[in-house]
């Protein structure tokens, strides 16, 4: 009987199964969040069975279900689970609602892999694109300033098209590049600086990341530490910033988005507080004739302004009275117009987003500006079952006109404008040229440029054409095994012309330089990956990949001096010419892999490894390795899921990581000696010699950077309060430096792996929602970080490494063993044992401050940065503001140095009427003296002080009201019956005012370049306040 029953049941079961097989069907679709962003890794399970899969990177899934009546359940951490009866449909796309209680934030990690934050054993900050596109600036990365703990962004005084300096967790190389790797849509892009100002002036040619259009950015992930970025191996020593651009995914049908913004910039004259009581002249008197007026062009050591008629530089008598702020009169109102239109379309098998943006900037510097046209196409398509592809192309045309000259006086309008005596009106110098085209000089010093001549007659134009393109293909071999390939290209050409015109006072015949720079980077990845649940509790995510990175750089230069025909600015029209050709090519080949094991969704551990081979370290017969292995491990424990927690704790995670990354093998051809044919032949005979001034090192290896980090991530009170804390310590060893050689060796230095740096720091992010009602929400976030960087070794003798010095040449950024990275070492006051200043009393009885030794006067990089953001939403209104600050650093002010020497600084008012009483030590006798410096001798007294850098190094501490925006979105009910989907507008303002500032007359953040020598200010473009309006329309 039993056997019969068994037999029967077996037959029934078989039949049933047969029918199941017969009726089985494939369901596929896309899972997105409520914003339309695809969700990868969503569990898709046929209810009541163990049959399931998960969505891929692009949120797509495909599942064989038993029959048309099956119910499929979509579950994803942080989102409410949705069960959908398929009812015979073969396509089911769902949008999951976020569940605030579930905290399953997904972020973009290394190599574009999306992960739940709780699985991360390291610190990663993701910023929404909206934060960059609300208050738009030409260089989008500057919008991150103050928003991310541990990321030190410095906006320089270099104009709208200038570069920015981004340093994550401290600089890790003494002289190499310290900026992060930028990865856009999975493809590393070039961020080379295209020229910068130095000791002798120049201008900032912009950088690579500034090409990225803020309106196209979906999100930015900042991989701060090595554990987060180790998968990028040798290129990750400065951290990695991953930019994901917007796509058409999640778009339902066709949509259009139009965005327009206008911003007005005005020079912030509130920073400058000059004396306006005494005018041009010398020894307390007014100039008596034109010669004297010109000989003392920038000297404010004249008489008290009295309104009398006094001759000026051009022979015209004008009122000897304050004429108002010259900065206000010279700089114009800058405008930035950004218009963009984006078309998006999404369907089951094809989605795309096509956008075009025009950015037109007129800088506050007259005749200077930037135009950038960006075109972007992001598309993705399902080509066949299990085969998906995406193609992204960006084309950028950037034209810059007259990037302002900075630093040293020649060609630098800022220099003259800032130093002009109170009774001189800069507008009298307009136009800058005489009718014959020669400069209208105002000073006997030919290097003091007429600012209008600098702005309108000097020429500096560049056009950059850039294509960033990538394509990827993914094949899901099985529901747990996939293969992805990705190839990207970053190609740019910069064509630049700069002219010192015929008639320039300091270079009467002028000169021209023509430049053609080409850059090409190709990067390709192939990844084989596995995502699999091994059991109820254990699951793995693992992949292996290979990568090839190939960079070519080429630079052609033509130089010509002495124009023959006046006014014709062409290389052929010059007496003598020179030319140059630079070329560099390098490749990195890599193999990498990652293995993540999770247990019960509360314990995660990830191992990664990458091995990089460097062409720059390859040479025949080289005995040291040309490759290096970069391992990392990180782990996270979500204690709140593993243990019973008090009810106010919603989430608590501990994390930790260890990593080894590297860098520094940047330049090609450093291993072996080459020769060159150089210059122009003499007597028809070509010239040949050893190429370069640095002894090559055939044994170079990449430098290594090891980092440990631990952290904590917690949320309390129903997620109203969140805390994220990180501590890290990293050590760079084997940094590639130029070892000092003796001048007698014939070489200026020798390459060696010797430098060592340590950085350690803490990062704290507090965020919360103090108020949340249906109509009103207040979100607040505060971040603070401190990084302590110490130089541990420099070269064989641990001698100082000299970086840049400003034109005053009395101070220099220097790496000193045992001190902070980039200390400011400058001329101090000579003092006696008690600290009293020592003076030499000259023949006129004027005490002249004695220059003491050069000593450490500060550190150029502020170790502490903070940011405080608040956003308020009331119904359809929102208000946001950002306050940021930096502390603990110092800045040398070249402006204040010159203002002192020229008598324009307010401090030099002391003693003008009745003389100045000075007490000090007489260098000749060593004993104390007190004397009164007569008003006519004050210029000598203050002039000597102007040579002493110590006087002009101040704390660069500041707290700034950085950004403010007030936005309004039209209520959706108003749009219900129109074709419009969303309309929002915002009023924006940035750099409104300082809440506190330690240095007078200048913006504490006004370095004239973005290099490693920070903390030097010398007549960059003054900072400005901006106001604007932003409109966004979607339909």
């Amino acid at each position, binding site marked *: 009987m039993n056997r019969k029953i068994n037999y029967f049941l077996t037959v029934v079961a078989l039949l049933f199964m047969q029918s199941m097989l017969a009726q089985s069907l494939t369901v596929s679709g896309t899972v997105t969040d409520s914003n339309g962003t695809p969700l990868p890794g969503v569990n898709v399970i046929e209810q009541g069975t163990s049959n399931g899969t998960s969505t891929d990177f692009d949120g797509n899934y495909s599942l064989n279900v038993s029959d048309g009546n099956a119910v499929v359940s979509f579950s994803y951490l942080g989102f409410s689970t949705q069960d959908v009866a398929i009812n015979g449909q073969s396509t089911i796309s769902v949008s999951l609602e976020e569940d605030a209680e579930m905290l399953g934030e997904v972020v973009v990690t290394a190599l574009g892999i999306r992960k739940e934050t709780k699985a991360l054993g390291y610190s990663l900050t993701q910023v929404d694109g909206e934060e960059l596109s609300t208050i738009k600036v030409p260089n989008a990365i500057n919008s991150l300033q103050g928003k991310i703990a541990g990321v030190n962004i410095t906006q320089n005084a270099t104009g709208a098209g200038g570069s920015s300096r981004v340093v994550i967790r401290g600089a890790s190389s003494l002289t190499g590049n310290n900026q992060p790797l930028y990865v856009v849509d999975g493809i590393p892009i070039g961020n080379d600086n295209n020229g910068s100002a130095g000791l002798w002036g120049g201008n900032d040619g912009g950088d690579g990341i500034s090409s990225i259009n803020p309106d196209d950015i979906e999100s930015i992930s900042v991989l701060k530490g090595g554990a987060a970025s180790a998968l990028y191996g040798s290129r990750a020593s400065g951290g990695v910033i991953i930019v994901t651009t917007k796509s058409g995914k999640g778009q339902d049908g066709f949509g259009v988005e139009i965005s327009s913004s206008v911003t007005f910039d005005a020079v912030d004259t509130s920073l400058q507080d000059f004396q306006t009581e005494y005018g041009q002249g010398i020894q307390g008197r007014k100039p008596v004739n034109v010669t004297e007026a010109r000989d003392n062009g920038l000297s404010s050591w004249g008489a008290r302004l009295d309104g009398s008629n006094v001759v000026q530089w051009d022979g015209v008598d004008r009122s000897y009275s304050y004429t108002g702020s010259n900065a206000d009169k010279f700089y114009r109102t800058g405008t930035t117009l950004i218009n963009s239109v984006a078309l998006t379309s999404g369907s089951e098998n094809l989605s795309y987003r096509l956008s075009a943006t025009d950015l037109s900037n007129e800088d506050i510097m007259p005749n200077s500006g930037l135009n950038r046209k960006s075109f972007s196409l992001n598309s993705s398509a399902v080509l066949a079952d299990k085969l998906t592809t995406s193609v992204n192309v960006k084309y950028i045309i950037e034209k810059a006109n007259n990037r302002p000259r900075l630093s040293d006086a020649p060609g630098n309008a800022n220099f003259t404008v800032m130093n002009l005596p109170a009774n001189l009106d800069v507008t009298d110098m307009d136009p800058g040229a005489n009718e014959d085209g020669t400069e209208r000089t105002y000073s006997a010093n030919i290097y003091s440029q007429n600012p209008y001549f600098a702005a309108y007659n000097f020429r500096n134009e560049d056009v950059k054409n850039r294509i960033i393109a990538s394509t990827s293909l993914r094949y899901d071999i099985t529901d747990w095994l996939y293969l992805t390939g990705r190839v990207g290209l970053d190609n740019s050409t910069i064509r630049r012309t700069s002219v010192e015109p015929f008639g320039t006072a300091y270079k009467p015949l002028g000169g021209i330089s023509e430049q053609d720079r080409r850059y090409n980077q190709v990067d390709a990845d192939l990844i084989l990956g596995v995502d699999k649940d091994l059991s109820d509790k254990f699951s793995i995510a693992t992949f292996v990949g290979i990568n090839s990175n190939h960079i070519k750089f080429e630079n052609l230069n033509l130089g010509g001096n002495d124009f023959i025909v006046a006014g014709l600015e062409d290389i052929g029209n010059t007496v003598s010419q020179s030319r140059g050709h630079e*070329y560099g090519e390098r490749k990195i080949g*890599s193999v990498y892999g990652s293995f993540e094991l999770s247990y019960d969704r509360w314990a995660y551990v990830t191992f990664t490894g990458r091995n990089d081979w460097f062409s720059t370290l390859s040479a025949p017969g080289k005995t040291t390795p040309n490759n290096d292995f970069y391992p990392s491990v990180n782990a996270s424990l979500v204690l709140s899921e593993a243990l019973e927690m008090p009810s106010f704790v919603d989430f608590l995670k501990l994390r930790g990581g260890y990593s080894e990354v590297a860098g520094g093998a940047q330049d090609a051809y450093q291993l*072996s000696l080459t020769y060159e*044919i150089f210059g122009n032949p003499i007597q028809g005979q070509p010239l040949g010699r050893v*190429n370069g*001034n640095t002894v090559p090192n055939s044994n170079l290896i990449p430098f290594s950077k090891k980092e440990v980090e631990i952290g904590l991530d917690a949320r309390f009170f129903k997620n109203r309060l969140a805390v994220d804390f990180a501590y890290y310590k990293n050590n760079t060893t084997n940094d590639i430096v130029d070892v000092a050689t*003796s001048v007698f060796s014939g070489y200026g230095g*020798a390459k060696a792996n010797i430098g060592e740096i340590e950085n350690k720091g803490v990062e704290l992010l507090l965020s919360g929602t103090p108020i949340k009602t249906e109509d009103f929400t207040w979100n607040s976030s505060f971040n603070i970080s401190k990084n302590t960087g110490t130089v541990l070794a420099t070269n064989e003798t641990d001698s100082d490494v000299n970086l840049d010095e400003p034109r005053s040449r009395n101070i220099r950024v220097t790496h000193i063993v045992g001190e902070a990275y980039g200390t400011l070492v400058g001329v101090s006051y000579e003092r006696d044992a008690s600290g009293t200043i020592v003076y030499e009393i000259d023949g006129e009885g004027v005490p002249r401050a004695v220059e003491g030794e050069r000593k450490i006067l500060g550190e150029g990089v502020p170790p502490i940065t903070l940011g405080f953001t608040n956003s308020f939403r009331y119904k359809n209104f929102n208000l946001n503001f950002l306050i940021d600050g930096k502390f603990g650093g110092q800045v040398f002010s070249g402006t204040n140095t010159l203002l002192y020497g020229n008598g324009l600084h307010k401090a030099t008012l002391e003693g003008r009427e009745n003389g100045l009483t000075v007490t000090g030590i007489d260098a000749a006798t060593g004993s104390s003296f007190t004397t009164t410096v007569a008003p006519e001798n004050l210029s000598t007294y203050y002039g000597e002080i102007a040579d002493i850098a110590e006087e002009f190094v101040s704390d660069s501490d500041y707290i700034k009201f950085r950004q403010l925006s007030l936005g309004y979105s039209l209520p959706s009910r108003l749009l219900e019956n129109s074709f419009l989907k969303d309309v929002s507008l915002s009023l924006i303002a940035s750099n409104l005012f300082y809440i506190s500032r330690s240095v007078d007359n200048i913006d504490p953040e006004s370095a004239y370049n973005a290099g490693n020598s920070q903390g030097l200010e010398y007549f960059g473009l003054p900072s400005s306040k901006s106001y604007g309006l932003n409109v966004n329309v979607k339909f």
Partner: protein
Amino acid sequence: MKKSIYILLFALVFSACDKGFEELNVNPTKPVQVDLSNKLTAAQKFLSSERYDNWRAGLIYQSTMMQHFSTTAGYWAGDKYTWNKGYASSLIDRYYGNVIKSVEDMLVQLDEEAAPEEMKAITRIVRVIAYARVTDLYGDVPYTEAGQAFISASLLPKYDAQSAIYADLLKELEESANALGTGISAFGDADVMYQGDQAKWKRLANSLMLRLGFRLIKVDPTASQEWVTKAIAGGVMESNEDILFLRHDADNKNGNGEVFSADGSPRLSDTFVNFLAGDPRLPILGARRSDGDTSPANLIGLPNGLDSAMLLDLTGEEDSENYAEPNRAIITGETAPMFFQTYAEVEFMLAEAGVRWGLAGDSEAHYNAGVTAAMKMLSLYGDAAIIDDADISTYLTNNPYDAGNAIEQINTQYWIATFLNEYETFSNWRRSGFPVLTPVNYPGNVTNGTIPRRLTYSESEQSSNPENYAAALAAQGPDELTTRVWWDKE
């Protein structure tokens, strides 16, 4: 099976990760070697060096110390015996990187290519010229280990005693002279000084031996006489055709000329102008600053050691516009030739050899030939600098050879003849003591009112090569302007 395919695939990938990298890391814009000829041309070009050191060590220091020039400009440190370390070391700062590194590199290549001996000899002579100039100015300097940071990884070379350097330089000259034959060397026209003429190089080697031999006169008179005798026997320069000089052009400018383009402050020293009274060279070498007038009556030399306030006090002149400066119409051009050793100098040395040791025949004839050659060679500056034979005879008639004061007379003429080759002027003045120059005593000078005896080392040596630098100071004396080099014995 599947597994092994994966393994194989990865092994392939792994081995391919650095495929072609060695070839890729070869700079396509730079050759791995260049021809010796090209290196010789460059080394010769850099013997006359750049504006940088011609301005600082040459003109600012030595030309004013030697009272060829004077100026009120404060930064002309040599005029006032003040110390600007960067200026003082400028010859070291340029020569080792530009000339000595190249010549050392050429010697390696000559050996590798087993080049003909005469090519090697010419290269060795160029090396001697460079080192002699450096050691004469600074004393003990790195020699055996210098310029070889790449060749022998000698990043921090030791300093060699000048006595040892001199012994080797003289030996080098002797061997080189012996190696040279006749005809054109394989350098050919790449030799932009002698166009490969071996006979000229040989006479140069002996002429340099004559010069360096005379340098030893105070420290080792016997050796001095021996080398001078040997040099004369070997055959020295015979005419102005043998002068060692470099023709400059618009692309390869005369460093002194570039200085005069950029710096209007130098004037002719009154010492020099006074010596040139009645000399047909005066209107060629000098012109009034204000208007270029060259009439000798209007050519007034500016006293050394004055600043503008002192000049005002002394003369009532507001500026130095009315004083003579180097003649901008003739000698200050950027394409003017630069001289290293002249036939005139050789004749003067032969005259002195006769006076001292009865060598080389008639001293008076050599003196006359020297003066004549010194005047005639100015024609290399162009037709405007041609001096008539009649003017030369007149000069010689008015300034006849004076056997009673021959050494001073000969060396004073040497001083005039080496105008603008201030390195040689300074060395010959130190070894001969002539002309007798009255030092200045400007407030704040660092020599206690004496003319400096050498220039000082690069400041960077103190931090980058401290041990060897300290050893050099221990051997030679403090690194100061007043310290004497080995051959400059008191």
